[in-house]
């Protein structure tokens, strides 16, 4: 079923034409016009959220933002293939995945405004919060999958990471463990061509997908800007994991159309012609073309989709700007599950120090002196 020397799988051409492919088509038979339109709507909304977040960073409302511009198909297609009991271990760019999981848009930016180290309770949406150490989360996914295996359930772990992460020891160790124990985990690599300023060629001398079979893990190399191929591949891998077939590695070939984060300047290292070329492969554009040919795009649909996106952006902006700062003494909260004498002492000392600046304290001091 899965070939060990994968060629790029594409089911939707740049021109928006559906490319039949026998071994994959059965996985996406149910993607009718309405289902494709729903995916399109998701992609439009997350692009709008992403653009708004970038704007909020430029306006000083967010400290940093890692844009996903260009990676919408990879994220939406894979996230929408999951069951609610599957568990996601993302990197820090999977904001579209979080959106699909039902994470509130304000909670998505909480981390990037600096208000918290994580924006949501992972157990409420079965998605871990952003992992910033590159590749570390792939081991967590593998461990979670070992747990699912021991619990005799057919839930699957999926972990997202980039091309840069594939050089990290953790990702390679995760593949060794996943293969040895046939853990139900899907390794979803978004090869967006760039790890900050380093092109993928620095990380991988040949296709990243070629590496997994060496670990005993079948891999798929798919057009990551083709939401239909992403859906098919992810469903195939999930099914394999659910039915005891072990891990699968998916290399979704995509492109980071924006900077690594808002702190980055890709004009220093990237040829503008490359960006122009990838713009022609825009994941939204080609799905829009297909939907148009299917007669799904009407002025009403366009207007409704735009309204949905604008509403999400407005909610994000209001939620972001209206977010209250955390209480100073909460800096001490949740280091441990139980009180810790050393930390309690520091908390008490700092509370006393803060109180010494309060107006009441000043008045009391003055009265004392008088």
């Amino acid at each position, binding site marked *: 079923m899965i070939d060990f020397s994968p060629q790029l799988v594409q089911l939707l051409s740049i021109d928006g034409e559906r490319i039949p492919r026998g071994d994959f088509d059965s996985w996406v038979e149910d993607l009718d016009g309405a289902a494709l339109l729903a995916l399109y709507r998701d992609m439009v909304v997350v692009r709008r959220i992403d653009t708004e977040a970038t704007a909020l960073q430029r306006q000083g409302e967010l400290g940093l933002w890692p844009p996903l511009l260009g990676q919408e198909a990879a994220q939406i297609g894979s996230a929408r293939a999951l069951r609610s009991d599957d*568990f996601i*271990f993302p990197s820090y760019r999977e904001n579209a995945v979080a959106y699909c999981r039902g994470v509130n848009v304000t909670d998505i930016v909480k981390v990037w405004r600096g208000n*918290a*180290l*994580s924006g949501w*309770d*992972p*157990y409420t949406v079965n998605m*871990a*919060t952003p992992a910033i*150490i590159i590749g*570390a989360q*792939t*081991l*967590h*996914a*593998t*461990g*979670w*999958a*070992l*747990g*699912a295996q*021991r*619990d005799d359930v057919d839930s699957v*772990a999926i972990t997202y990471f980039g091309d840069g992460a594939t050089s990290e*020891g*953790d990702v390679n*160790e*995760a593949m*060794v*463990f996943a293969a*040895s*124990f046939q853990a139900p985990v899907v390794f979803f690599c978004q090869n967006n061509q760039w790890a900050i300023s380093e092109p993928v060629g620095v990380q991988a001398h040949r296709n990243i997908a070629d590496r997994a079979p060496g670990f005993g893990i079948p891999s798929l190399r798919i057009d990551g800007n083709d939401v239909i191929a992403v859906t098919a591949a992810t469903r195939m891998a999930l099914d394999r994991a659910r039915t005891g077939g072990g891990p699968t590695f998916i290399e979704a070939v995509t492109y980071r159309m924006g900077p690594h984060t808002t702190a980055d300047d890709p004009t220093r290292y990237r040829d503008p012609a490359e960006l122009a070329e990838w713009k022609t492969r825009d994941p939204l554009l080609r799905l829009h073309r297909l939907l148009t040919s299917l007669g799904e795009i009407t002025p009403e649909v366009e207007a409704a989709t735009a309204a949905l996106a604008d509403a999400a952006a407005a909610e994000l902006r209001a939620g972001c700007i209206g977010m209250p700062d955390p209480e100073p003494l909460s800096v001490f*909260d*949740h*280091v*441990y*599950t*139980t009180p*810790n*004498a*050393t*930390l309690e002492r520091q908390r008490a000392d700092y509370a006393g120090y803060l109180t010494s600046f309060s107006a009441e304290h000043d008045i009391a001091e003055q009265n004392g002196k008088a």
Partner: protein
Amino acid sequence: MTMTPLMTPATVSTVPGLNAPQPTPLSETKTLTMGKAINEGLRQAMLDDPKVVLLGEDIGALGGVFRVTSDLLAQFGARRVIDTPLAESAIIGTAVGLAYRGYRPVCEIQFDGFIFPGFDQIVSQVAKFHYRTQGAVRMPITIRVPFGGGIGAAEHHSESPEAYFTHTSGLRVIAVSNAQDAYSLIRQAIASDDPVLYFEPKRRYHVKGEVVPELGLPMEQAVIVRPGTDVTLLAYGALVTTARDAALAADDEGISIEVIDLRSLSPVDYAVVEASVRKTGRLVVTHEAAQSGGLGGEIIATITERCFSFLESAPVRVTGFDVPYPPAKLESHHLPDLDRILDGVDRVMGRR
């Protein structure tokens, strides 16, 4: 010291699907080596809670290079006693994922010096998850580390890396010194919802002691193992025995040493240490780990801040030198021994 059971010893439950004989859990006082005491503690923890799983290199059929996990594979099966590939970061990282799913993993790091490939997962993930997620995700992971020197081993097999972990918020760090604590504290560590680094002094694995099933004092409490009036001597791990011997020797010279087994290195039980120093006015801290940036310096700074006016003399550290762990033929010079500890005692007593 009163022995207050924290947890009642569980009755033996039938583990389904396993045909191996079920050894009787510790239900009465037994004389055990420290290694066997840890083994009994692990066994009891696994009987008590099906979510306890063990991960490590060679921990299955071999029972670990120190045999601490002997027979547990036969009793609990390969789903709970997991011989892992040789990758420390993955041992810790997959334990994180198991903890995410409600498991209580116990990781064995084969030797102290092998912990560093797993350091990032410990420091950046295990220690931070609870804080990062505002309490939503707990990391009840125990990381067992055979530590310290004195066994004539090759490089990377004799180290004392505890200060790296006491410097890391979010971790609890304990070091055991005897069979009873080895048993009681491994069970407490596994039951803790916080991640625990559990340091086992490998040169004491074969020392026997009486072990009762009751778990005694909470693991974060220090214990006065020998009362005294002139000098407070802090030790942990293998050096507790050395410190007791030193105290005995000092008696002959009319010096009364109070020996405290810290047990918990993070947090340090300062209440016990402070009370002792207020009484004796003199403090010596000993550890095998290097001096600079070590636990001794931190403890002395804290005690100096809190008990300055009670101190009769400057506190003294008797520690390993600031050198990489030396070759085996030099380790007796590097490791604090009875004479070096007594030399430190002489210094706080103003006798030299």
